[in-house]
């Protein structure tokens, strides 16, 4: 037990300092030792990413630390996932998200930040990349039975496509099926409200908070 706890704290530490190699190696060790993978995630990795969130909130961590840690989290999960039964994964998942930078816009740095943080916080994230056609968002969301469609736009000109997507959903009778979250430099809370989006996140952590709040598992911490 003692050694297991030490392993968990090393996992958390690997996430906090952003050591991808260690995060992966420790995940491999958990597999080799046939540990309960749920416990590994809940007691090892999750406390790590939570600590990272705290350090961010305190102003000690900036984006490079935040995103490096999120990437480490993703890498560790990639090692553990194949060994977990899908029903277990479902239980762990906070919800399915289809995310991308909208048609006409090739800027995806902000979207990448949000996708990383969502994945690190237990969401199943399907990142469609940049310059994503509106139909593709909808097709993919239907295909994977997504809970959320997240739309990013950096250009003031392409942000208008966010409204079009919501209108398209309405036109196909799918508006209630998905929660639509919008973000991006020119986007504002008011814009989100104007176009009838379900929410707006001003940064990656706000997006995580929002998705947790609106997601199928509601307010689970």
């Amino acid at each position, binding site marked *: 037990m003692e050694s297991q706890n030490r392993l968990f704290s090393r996992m958390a530490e690997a996430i906090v300092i952003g050591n991808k190699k260690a995060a992966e190696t420790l995940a491999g060790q958990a597999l080799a030792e046939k540990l309960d993978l749920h416990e590994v995630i809940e007691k090892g990795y999750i406390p790590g990413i939570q600590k990272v969130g705290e350090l961010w909130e305190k*102003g000690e961590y*900036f*984006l*490079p630390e935040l995103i490096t840690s999120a990437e480490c989290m993703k890498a560790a999960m990639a090692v553990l996932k194949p060994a977990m039964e899908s029903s277990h994964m479902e239980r762990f998942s906070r919800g399915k998200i289809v995310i991308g930078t909208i048609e*006409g816009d*090739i*800027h995806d*740095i*902000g979207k990448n*930040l949000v996708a990383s943080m969502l994945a690190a916080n237990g969401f199943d994230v399907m990142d469609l990349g940049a310059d994503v056609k509106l139909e593709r968002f909808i097709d993919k969301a239907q295909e994977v039975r997504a809970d959320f469609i997240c739309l990013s736009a950096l250009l*003031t*000109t392409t*942000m*208008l*496509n966010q409204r079009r997507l919501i209108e398209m959903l309405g036109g196909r009778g799918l508006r209630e099926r998905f929660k639509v979250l919008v973000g991006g*430099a*020119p986007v*504002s809370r008011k814009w989100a409200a104007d176009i009838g989006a379900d929410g707006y996140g001003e*940064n*990656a952590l706000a997006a995580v908070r929002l998705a947790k709040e609106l997601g199928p598992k509601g307010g689970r911490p």
Partner: protein
Amino acid sequence: MIRTRRPKVELISRSFIEKIIGEAFTILGRPGVFVENAEARRLFREAGEAVDEASQRVIIRKKLVADSLASAPQTIELYDRSGEKKYIVGHDHVHFDPGSAAVKILDHSTGQGRKPETADLIRLARLTESCEHIHFQSTALVSGDVPEIIADSYRLYVGLQFSSKPVVTGTFRTQGFRPMFEMLAAVRGGTDELRRKPLAIFDACPSPPLKWSNLTAQSLIDCARAGIPSELISMGLTGATSPVTIAGTLVQHVAENLAGLVIGQLAQKGAPVIFGGSPASFDMRKGTTPMGAIETMMIDMAYAQIGKYLHLPTHAYMGLSDAKVNDSQAGLESGMGATLAALAGINVVSGAGMMDFESAQSLEKLLIDNEICGMAYRLIEGIAQRDEPLASQLFEGLGPETQFLTMPHTRKWYKLEHTFPRLADRDTYDAWVSLGKKSMADRAHERLDQILEGTAPNVADGALQKELSRIMLDDARRNGIHALPEISIA
């Protein structure tokens, strides 16, 4: 008489410039750049460069860049709508213009941003026309009352009707070039006349890192062939889409711009190209792109210095702010930016009126920034020797009653040596109180009303207006739009 020195600031040494350019060449040689546009790739292939069609990657050898630098003009001439007034873009001449494509306008009465409409675009063009220190207009607002698909051509359509100044603009779609080109040619009375007397600059932005998208490469090619100057707008974000160090971002910036320069020259040898950009010091806390950051301005000044070293006209987004209202931050960032841009001798300086990371335009700020630009111009005029001797003769007969107010020397020079702002507050405290304790933004708003109500618009003549309307309507119809907002100055 001593020659007046034009004050100038250079941030980096010659050897540093050469090192940055050297590394940019290294990148262009390996890994090369992504070019999404098939025609541009064909041009590279025909020039003997290695092109990988599958990955769309193009290797650009130093020799081709050197040839392109040799064939690109060192200065560009722009002419106003009448074709009479000429502006030289090059050397250390500085021309300010309002920034680009804002989707919000700051409403002074509510203090809130709102969606711009046709009437706002008309006001913007008319106010720009009135600003003596803002030489060029730009299509700085995206009109919310027309469908997005024609938003690019519509901005130009309004601007050309209500301001005579040369215009900084650009396309949002590859099909946008044709109607915009037709409008510009209509002003000149033909495409050859337009080539001889360019009226507009088109911005083309590569996608960091190291990619020229289909739209932007097409714009470079179309402009090169039409003789329309292209402005290369590299926009790395330090530590996000470009290296985090300022020098590292400059390497990428130079590589992206040189690739754009080559595309233009391959499309048409001698095509006018401006070495520009809109990079930013990426904020690692907020994930935003502050245009008012001092590091952003340092990057701008340094790449402009490199552009000058390469004998190209230069451009930057400076003299703008990230503030959301016309507060101290708006003035401080815009004032610093415009001043530094002028000191750096940047030829086209875009940003007047802009705020909120290039997403909003304030007409009040435009008028305030006009005054800032005036101060910057005065600064770079430098200190002149007006007399020989300078002043010692004025002290002959020095006594307790000596004063300078009534000297002929004063009367002769005061208006040349000193400027008189219209909006900055130089009143005594009591006078300021009696005038209603107004802020600079309040005074700018009043001034705005005076200009719009008290001066006649400089509108295009009737025949030209008709032709512009025809081109705009054709473009709209091609896109399934059959009605446009009414154009009126009421």
